[in-house]
């Protein structure tokens, strides 16, 4: 019988190069799942949020219920949200995506609505005076001017989603959260720390990427406001 190897894995150290080299495929898969779940949720949320925010801006009656509903959704803790969706989606990736969509939706609707509301009345009237119809006004004046606030919302929603995906580990679809969960059960320090650090790195990279997109989309403003 060979003696057990005396490397950092055997000693269960927090930082371990061996872990990175021997478990590379597992880590890559987890990161890919993490990115997939995050991107899908935020994109779906964005597609739903824009019309909701526009409707809430246009019809004052819609604003109250939309804001109240999103506040209620946002108040429900993530673990409970995933659990409430269990009868609908079962133990699936759709469950995690659906839960994350509901959270991202809240952040996006609030921010897009705030951006639309902040469009100066003068600007709107000037556009109308130039003969802009409601659709053209929305697409070429209001939405572009709401873009900085909307992008701020998108950044917050994305960073939050990256962090919340980990809770999806409860149903087995948590990206890096899965590694943290199994690492916890097996007391595997290197795995937990590596996965946690990767989560934060993904969040920061996504934030920086979106900030870059925002700069490109809104060259007329350098001020970032939320």
């Amino acid at each position, binding site marked *: 019988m060979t003696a057990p190897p005396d490397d950092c894995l055997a000693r269960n150290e927090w930082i371990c190069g061996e872990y990175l080299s021997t478990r590379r495929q597992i880590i890559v898969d987890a990161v890919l799942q993490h990115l997939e779940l995050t991107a899908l949720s935020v994109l779906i949320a964005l597609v739903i949020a824009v019309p909701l925010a526009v409707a809430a801006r246009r019809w004052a009656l819609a604003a109250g219920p939309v804001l109240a509903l999103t506040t209620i959704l946002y108040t429900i803790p993530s*673990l409970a949200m995933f659990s409430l969706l269990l009868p609908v989606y079962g133990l699936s990736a759709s469950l995690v995506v659906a839960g994350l969509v509901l959270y991202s939706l809240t952040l996006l609707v609030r921010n897009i609505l705030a951006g639309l509301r902040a469009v100066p009345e003068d600007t709107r009237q000037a556009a109308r005076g130039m003969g802009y119809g409601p659709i053209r006004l929305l697409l070429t004046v209001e939405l572009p001017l709401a873009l900085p606030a909307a992008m701020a919302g998108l950044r917050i929603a994305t960073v939050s989603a990256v962090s*919340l995906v980990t809770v999806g580990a409860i149903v087995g679809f948590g990206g890096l959260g899965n590694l943290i969960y199994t690492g916890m059960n097996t007391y595997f320090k290197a795995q937990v720390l590596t996965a946690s650090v990767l989560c934060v790195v993904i969040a920061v990279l996504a*934030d920086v990427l979106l900030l870059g997109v925002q700069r490109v989309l809104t060259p007329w403003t350098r001020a970032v406001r939320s």
Partner: protein
Amino acid sequence: MDEGGPLVNTIGDAWKWLTDAAHWAGDDGIWHRLTQHLVLTVVCLVLSCLIALPVALVLGHLGKGGALAVNISNVGRAVPTFAVLVLLLLTPIGQWGEGPTVVALVLFAVPPLLTNAYVGMRGVDRSVVQAARGMGMTGRQVLWRVELPLAMPLILSGVRIAAVQLVATATIAALAGGGGLGRIITAGFNLASTPQVVAGAVLVAVFALVVEGIFEIGERLAPGRARGRGPTV
């Protein structure tokens, strides 16, 4: 074509689970978990306020450390709660029972408190502060009698955000072995009992909404001066 059937059954079963007296008693019972959740939330909210508010008030009064106070919320958002809970569990703190939960809860409640209180303090009209100084108030008097009352709406909205955050974090703590209502959910997952999972989730959701509602009512009852301008985080 009976897609609604299983869903309705699950809701019915969850209701049965909730109304079964046996599930309310004992160490794993709802009452015990509810009490744990409440105690964790309140104790950690008080602890976080004791840590964050003095720092924020002093920094805001002096106008220093703004970048830290504002960015700490962004950092807090990027760090997964679950990761911090598990990391703490694997450190020596993990030996102290609810230690990891308490530390994680405080860590996640401090950023919104700090940011909102700081922004509130800095948002006080400078001419008001100068008028107070012109009247001969000392720095301490300006802080307590001018800046603090005017910053109160934002400080309170920070407390509200922190409270809701605490309820959510305490729920996730169950994944890492902490107490509280989340345990009903995780136990449900372990037993593959969807009704129990849903029942636990309903309890957690109602708890969170009640906490939010208490702050909402508190804000409405507060004198007009203290009413929120809306949270910044």
